[in-house]
């Protein structure tokens, strides 16, 4: 499936990244935390979206629940950060199961559309909960130390990527891919499609929620607007699709590249940055629907004609 070199390269990159707090400046570390957390979001989206082909436009809900779970546990119950992360993750996974079980029984576009509404619904519920600080939000205890958060975010991304690496070479992952390619055939081979789809969503919610929790403690403040930010959905979906859905390293590479571009654009005009993301996804679907990783392999084989192969296959 995968050669030895990408793995070796990935380990080297991870080691170099782990050293950034020692030789990088504050700006680099802070950009790094955001980029690593976004890469984790793209990678968790990949578990369901990339492997089973079921698109979620509501994963930011799990991020929001992760931030709020952590924040509520730490501010109202004075629990340590680690316990807060667990609380957030459990709440998000429960939410994933509750939403997933009725809707992922269905095939086709239903799940995608349902997730469109999920974010607004959850934001409305949370902003009416007194324990979650209603519309005002919560302030978490202050902890200085960008380096710690940086290493935590890196560790989370590594664990998430290792999980995806395991998925890509396990029976579990093969079942997910079988669902993507032909759900009827998968079913006839004894794959319980609903169960696999729901567990993939729950797994995705786990990593997304922890990323949210880390961000909550780092930024020391949560409110409904930032926790349930819909542009976050846009970003994670696009980073994964741009990098290569259903691959192990594609989403990470895609998000590092796009995070860097976004940083540059956002310092100019913030509207243009999101607009750019919309254009990236449109162009990616037309020209490189299998992502950057496939583009690199395909371009070596067939050169620039690779870009038009997808159109040739799928146009009317």
């Amino acid at each position, binding site marked *: 499936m995968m050669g030895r070199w990408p793995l070796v390269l990935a380990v080297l990159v991870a080691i170099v990244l782990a050293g950034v707090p020692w030789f990088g400046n504050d700006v680099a570390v802070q950009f790094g935390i955001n980029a690593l957390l976004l890469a984790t979001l793209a990678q968790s989206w990949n578990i369901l*979206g990339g492997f089973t082909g079921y698109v979620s436009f509501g994963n930011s809900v799990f991020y929001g629940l992760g931030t709020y779970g952590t924040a509520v546990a730490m501010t109202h119950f004075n629990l340590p950060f680690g316990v807060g992360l667990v609380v957030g993750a459990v709440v998000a996974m429960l939410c994933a199961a509750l939403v997933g079980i009725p809707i992922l029984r269905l095939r086709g576009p239903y799940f995608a559309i349902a997730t469109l*509404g999920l974010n607004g619904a959850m934001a409305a519920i949370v902003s009416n909960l007194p324990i979650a600080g209603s519309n005002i939000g919560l302030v978490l205890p202050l902890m200085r130390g960008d380096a710690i958060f940086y290493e935590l975010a890196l560790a989370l991304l590594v664990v998430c990527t290792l999980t995806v690496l395991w998925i890509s070479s396990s029976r579990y992952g093969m079942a997910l891919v079988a669902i993507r390619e032909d759900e009827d055939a998968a079913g006839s081979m004894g794959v319980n499609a609903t169960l696999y789809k729901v567990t993939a969503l729950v797994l995705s919610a786990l990593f997304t929620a922890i990323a949210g929790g880390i961000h909550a403690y780092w930024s020391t403040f949560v409110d409904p607007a930032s926790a349930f930010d819909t542009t976050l959905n846009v970003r994670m979906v696009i980073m994964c699709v741009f990098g290569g859905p259903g691959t192990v390293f594609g989403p990470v590479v895609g998000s590092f590249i796009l995070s860097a571009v976004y940083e540059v654009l956002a310092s100019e005009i913030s509207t243009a940055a999101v607009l750019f993301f919309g254009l990236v996804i449109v162009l990616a679907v037309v020209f490189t629907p299998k992502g950057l990783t496939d583009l690199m392999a395909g371009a070596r084989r067939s050169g620039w004609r690779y870009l038009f192969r997808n159109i040739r296959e799928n146009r009317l």
Partner: protein
Amino acid sequence: MVLAQILLNGILLGGLYGLMALGMALVWGVLNIVNLAHGALIMLGGYVVYYIFVFTGLDPFAAIAVAMVIMFGVGFLLQYGLLNLIVRSALLNTLLITFGLDVVITYLAQFLFTADFRTINPSYAGANFSAFGLTVPGIRFAAFVVAIALAAALWWLLNRRPLGLAIRATSQNLVAARLYGVDPRILYAVTFGIGTALAGAAGGLYGMIANLTPYIGASLTAKSFVIAIIGGLTNPFNVILGGIVVGIAESLATLYFGATYSDVVSFGLLVLVLVVRPTRTLRAA
């Protein structure tokens, strides 16, 4: 009496909701594209009507007719130049590309029209009349009538005109339709154009009874989707009926739970519909 008034408001609003969903149902049924940019196109139509009204002083209902022509062109070009390129690929890809279009249209709108609230406000906006002891808001009633009329026009087009025959034939069997001389590239573009024109009309009416902002798209897409599922994809009148169901449900929910939970209610309704009617075959027959 309060309840009757709430029901009336729900029915009038529901007609408009049905019109919003008409275009989505048509495109979904014929092209098999679930257009996630549909709500953004409704929003765009609303702004087109708004600017025609503000700059030319044309009556908003006449402006809607003009906007429909413009939006038809937008939809035709979108399908012909872009969506036709990938229309045969997996559902995942059509969802992703229309999602991307939604983002592009939303942020272009924010850039061009700013995020300020806009309302299409003709001189007769506040007028209402009473019937059977109930107050009927004039503009909502007119919007309801326009929605019904457009549904009837769509039904007539699909069932009584050669173009409608070609559209229905293509949705049943692309290859056979091609053998009978239908050019699917043009036909798909025309169908998407009609869907977009209907979205534009819905946007114009929406702008008269609610605020237009660049961000209304996503929730309108979700709403249109629910209605398309309830109403099915074949008969325009059923879609209007589906819209009325959702309109009544929403009005009752606002009465009993309050307006802050309207997003929660429409999401609950969506899940409920998916749980109760999952097996309905949605492809146009």
